[in-house]
């Protein structure tokens, strides 16, 4: 068993699974950073950009839909991860587990 485990962990399939997961979680974390800290830095450095009105007849500032957009974007990123994990990660895990135990 221990030997099987070792060869599985050293297999290119397992390594590529780990690499894929790392790639997608780091990529999504970076996107999350960009959207949230982008918003924060915009407030820090360019308040007037957020303070501009959407059009001449309204009082609504650009900052309001943008704050909502940051929340929506964060949620959408979790949707992307779940769709990816369900479609790609889970079947691969199932396959590798079957290889280790099933035979």
């Amino acid at each position, binding site marked *: 068993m221990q030997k099987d485990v070792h060869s599985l962990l050293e297999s290119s399939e397992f390594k590529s699974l780990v690499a894929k997961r790392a790639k997608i979680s780091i990529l999504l974390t970076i996107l999350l950073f960009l959207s949230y800290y982008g918003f924060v830095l915009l407030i820090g450095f360019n308040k007037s950009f957020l*303070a501009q009105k959407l059009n001449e007849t309204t009082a609504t500032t650009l900052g309001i839909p943008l704050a909502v957009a940051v929340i929506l974007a964060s949620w959408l990123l979790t949707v992307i991860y779940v769709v990816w994990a369900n479609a790609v990660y889970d079947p691969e895990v199932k396959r590798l587990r079957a290889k280790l135990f099933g035979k």
Partner: protein
Amino acid sequence: MPPVTEQAAGAIQTTLGTPTLPAIVFFLIIVAITLAITYWAAKRTKTTKEFYAAGRSVSAFQNGLALSGDYMSAASFLGIAGMVALKGYDGMIYAVGWLVGWPALMFLIAEPLRNLGKFTFADVVAFRLKQTPVRIASAIGGILTVLFYTIAQMVGSGSLVKLMFGIPYEYAEIMVGCIMLAYVLFGGMLATTWVQIIKAVMLLCGVSAMMLMVLAKFNFNPGDLYAAVATQYGQAALEPGGLITSPIDAISLGLALMFGLLGLPHILQRFFTVPDAKAARISVLYATGFIGYFYIIIPIVGFGAAALIGREVIANIDKGGNMAAPLLAEFLGGTPFLGFIAAVAFATILAVVAGLTLAAASSFSHDIYVHVIKKGNATEQEEVRASKIATLLFGTVAVGLGILFKGQNVAFMVGLAFAIACSANFPALILSIFWKKFTTAGAVWAILTGAFLAVGLIIISPTVWVDVLGNPKGSALFALKNPAIVSMTASFLVGYVVSLLTKDETAEQKFEDEKLRTYLGVGAE
């Protein structure tokens, strides 16, 4: 949590602060239902797996709601609505920060956490390291986090219950303590989960109803609401104001909010209640959806309160604005709706404090008693008994501290809890999961560095040095309001350097098993 001050309602027509019949009825209904659930749960809570983790029987959807119920505190409900009412757009910026940790939680640790852990996050940190030192260090980080979070919740809840029901502060503390203890002591995680689910549903429904009633007054057009706010208080109410003046301060606070979530013991413990890693992942999707929705609609309630009630009236009842939502509820739906919202706020407090108490008790009994004192050789019965004693002790301490800190400015303690969580618990957790060469000494030093640096730096920061201790402005020795950017970085660095300087062969050998479990869930409990 913004500080709650107690002022007379003055000439304003409100039944706030007097226990009205609807408020009492709603309150009693909630207590009756939750205690009935506790009775039902108590019969299903005999083993440790049931007490700490609800027998891992919670579905992803249920856990998503319970996570929301565990996280959305009275501070975010009443505090953010009040902040938007009094300060406008700045309150919205603040609301966004409370959500962004959830996706990070999903991408980085939700699944490995579920696969590796049993009952506490220390199970994961100590997976392949030496049990005694790592459990003690993790317990220090975990309990400090929970303790500061609890003090802030208890002090806030005492003041809120007093403001809304007119019950004296001390009685309010004891009442919260007793009801919450009944849930945790008899019903364990199963009862706590259902209390959190009920509270989350009530809170989401209550706030949604308020939002719809507000929008109904403005032709269901948010633009009209914003226009009304701008007419009364000037365009500045819809623009960023003074919340973010220094970007580095904002980034430090953002790091604390984002990664602090990944180190909150009571949130992490919820992941052991679902059957597998897939359910853990999906429960975060639900939680992020519910919490995101909540933070999107709560500013509408805040702006509605400013437009329909008026800032002066709100600030007159409570300087921090905490009563904006209850006042608006009374204006929109009369005394019955106020009664409902007051009961919701009360349920919110109970659910959060119950989750915190369970997390602290688990750390005492599972990490310290079983793994340090008994060296892992405790019987099921001994562990259940220890966890109940720890629950009782922590509950009593929480009530005691709540009374001790009466009237103190404890708003900084939530920020401090997040700072410790992201500086002590999070680095050790993530390094232990993903880095082969992480050693026992590295973990202990990372946790202790993070915890003590976070506490020490916040004491000499403007938040405590100036605002709490009353030293002159500008005299703080540490410039940032939240130390996360320094203390979290230091914790990672110390963990890295100490691990390179020490050798932990067992830990390296066990990394294979850990990897198999992290990625494939082989051997997960």
